[in-house]
């Protein structure tokens, strides 16, 4: 398969125009215009995605890879055409290296589950970081439990940055795998993964990157990063839930055993001996989420219309404005003040529980997340019950940031 050239932006970024393309943004909540600042949990979907999924079910629905009839061929083509789309989006060398999964969690489980079957041995070390999402912790703990491997953790400092020196010191002859989050969903920290991958590779250790929070906010090129695996969810990049991608270097995907068995992943089955399909199909057992994958393709097409640098600039403005205005309120503790950050602002109000604040803010029509954000080890480290998290996407505006800050101010007044 041929490499696919990255697409060039076809339109200039205009936030009002963008907003008009996301139907849900016109909703009212408690009689006020919705301010949706929970994009790290999931993003909203543009019309093109909704229409694409609708059109698929209305006029193209058939099972893929199975029928010779026209409809099945069309469905297969539509589904398979998303592979080169994702290849270009992630900068992969070949479309074979794009495995469709249910999402990031599933992608990590594919690798961890597969590595439990012969790759990990007793005493091997799996190196994670202290800011991982539970979905990049628990699959490795399961793998460790099954194989006798042990999980080691790279410490995080008070500002929410990885201790890279400690990381380098932890890499050792027993390290068999490194799994790191590209962008922290709780802190917004962008980790120096390129360096970390090079460090691991210098000792022959493979690296998996959890890219769930990265792909909507900046360019990703897996060949450039040289990571061995990269995981993402469509729903965090304006696509539907229940679908995502595992990028894996072909040499790894070829070498690892299948994770789940079923239809589509085999080449021949008999009770004596079953042979597996080629990659990526070897890792795609059963009827996939066809509409979801096609919707994911539409989402990536949508995002690719823009120059991602414009999106980054816009989001950077939002984060800077939110950070500045929240700090100006006083009595605020920002959680995660790394030098390199994306579109996440996590904070606490002195003396107030994030659950109370989020509940009151909701009454003002502002959707933020409260809680531990599936990063309990990080909350334990900071000795906090959770945070309030405002997370931005390309359709948020400076006015919405002002609505957030105003809501926080009013919530504090109300609760104190």
């Amino acid at each position, binding site marked *: 398969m041929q490499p696919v050239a990255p697409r060039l932006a076809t339109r200039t970024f205009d936030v009002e125009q963008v907003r008009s393309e996301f139907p849900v943004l016109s909703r009212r909540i*408690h009689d006020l215009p919705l301010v949706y600042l929970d994009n790290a949990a999931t993003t909203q979907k543009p019309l093109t995605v909704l229409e694409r999924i609708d059109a698929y079910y209305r006029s193209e629905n058939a099972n893929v890879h199975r029928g010779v009839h026209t409809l099945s061929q069309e469905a297969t083509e539509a589904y398979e055409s998303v592979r080169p789309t994702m290849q270009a989006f992630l900068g992969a060398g070949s479309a074979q290296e794009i495995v469709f999964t249910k999402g990031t969690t599933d992608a990590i489980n594919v690798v961890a589950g597969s590595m439990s079957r012969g790759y990990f041995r007793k005493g091997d070390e799996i190196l994670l970081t202290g800011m991982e999402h539970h979905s990049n912790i628990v699959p490795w703990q399961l793998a460790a439990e099954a194989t006798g491997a042990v999980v080691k953790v790279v410490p995080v400092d008070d500002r929410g940055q990885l201790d890279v020196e400690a990381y380098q010191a932890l890499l050792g002859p027993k390290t068999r795998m490194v799994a790191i989050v590209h962008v922290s969903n709780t802190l917004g920290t962008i980790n120096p993964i390129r360096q970390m991958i090079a460090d691991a590779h210098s000792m022959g250790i493979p690296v998996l990157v959890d890219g769930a929070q990265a792909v909507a906010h900046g360019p990703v090129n897996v060949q450039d990063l040289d990571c061995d695996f990269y995981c993402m969810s469509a729903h965090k990049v304006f696509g539907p839930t229940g679908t995502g991608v595992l990028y894996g270097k072909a040499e790894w995907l070829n070498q690892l055993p299948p994770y789940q068995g079923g239809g589509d992943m085999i080449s021949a089955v008999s009770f004596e001996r079953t042979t597996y399909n080629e990659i990526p199909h070897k890792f795609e057992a059963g009827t996939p989420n066809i509409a979801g994958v096609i919707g994911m393709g539409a989402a990536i097409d949508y995002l690719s219309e823009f120059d991602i640098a414009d999106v980054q600039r816009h989001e950077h403005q939002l984060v800077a404005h939110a950070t500045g205005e929240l700090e100006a309120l006083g009595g605020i503790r920002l959680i995660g003040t790394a030098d390199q950050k994306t579109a996440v602002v996590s904070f606490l109000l002195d003396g*107030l*529980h*994030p*659950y*109370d604040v989020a*509940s*009151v803010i*909701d*009454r003002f029509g502002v959707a933020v997340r*409260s*809680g*531990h954000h599936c990063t309990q080890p990080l909350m334990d480290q900071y000795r906090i*019950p*959770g945070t309030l998290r405002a997370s931005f996407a390309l359709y948020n505006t400076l006015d919405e940031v002002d609505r957030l800050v105003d809501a926080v101010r009013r919530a504090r007044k*109300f*609760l104190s």
Partner: protein
Amino acid sequence: MAAATSTIEERAAEVVEEFELFDDWMGRYEHLIEQGKGLPALPDDYRTEAYQVRGCQSQVWVAAEPTDSGTIRFLADSDALITRGLAALLVRVLDDQPPEAVASSNLAFLDQIGMNEHLSPTRKNGLDAMVRRMKLYAESLAAV
């Protein structure tokens, strides 16, 4: 706390009536938080893992003691104001009632006071688990 002579239903109706006096969420929330402030302090002995109901978002502790008159006494607390308010309402309605009545109680009043958004298990504030825990205590007391 209300007199032991009133039933769970009567106390629940009283709570609903009180909340009906407020015509906006601010009033209802303020009243709820006030209720939490009136909740008797939870003795430290109960502020332990064994009495903790872990919600995803806020923590709740709930304990029960039998009384000499055969009713059940509830004690509760939470680290969040809104959750503590909801805990206070539950204690107010269920405290000092016969265990059988608690075990079989219908707590629909929580839906009727305009706090339903806090009741869904997905909200993960521990309220749902707190109700289950209170009923469990009552069931085990009723069985003795």
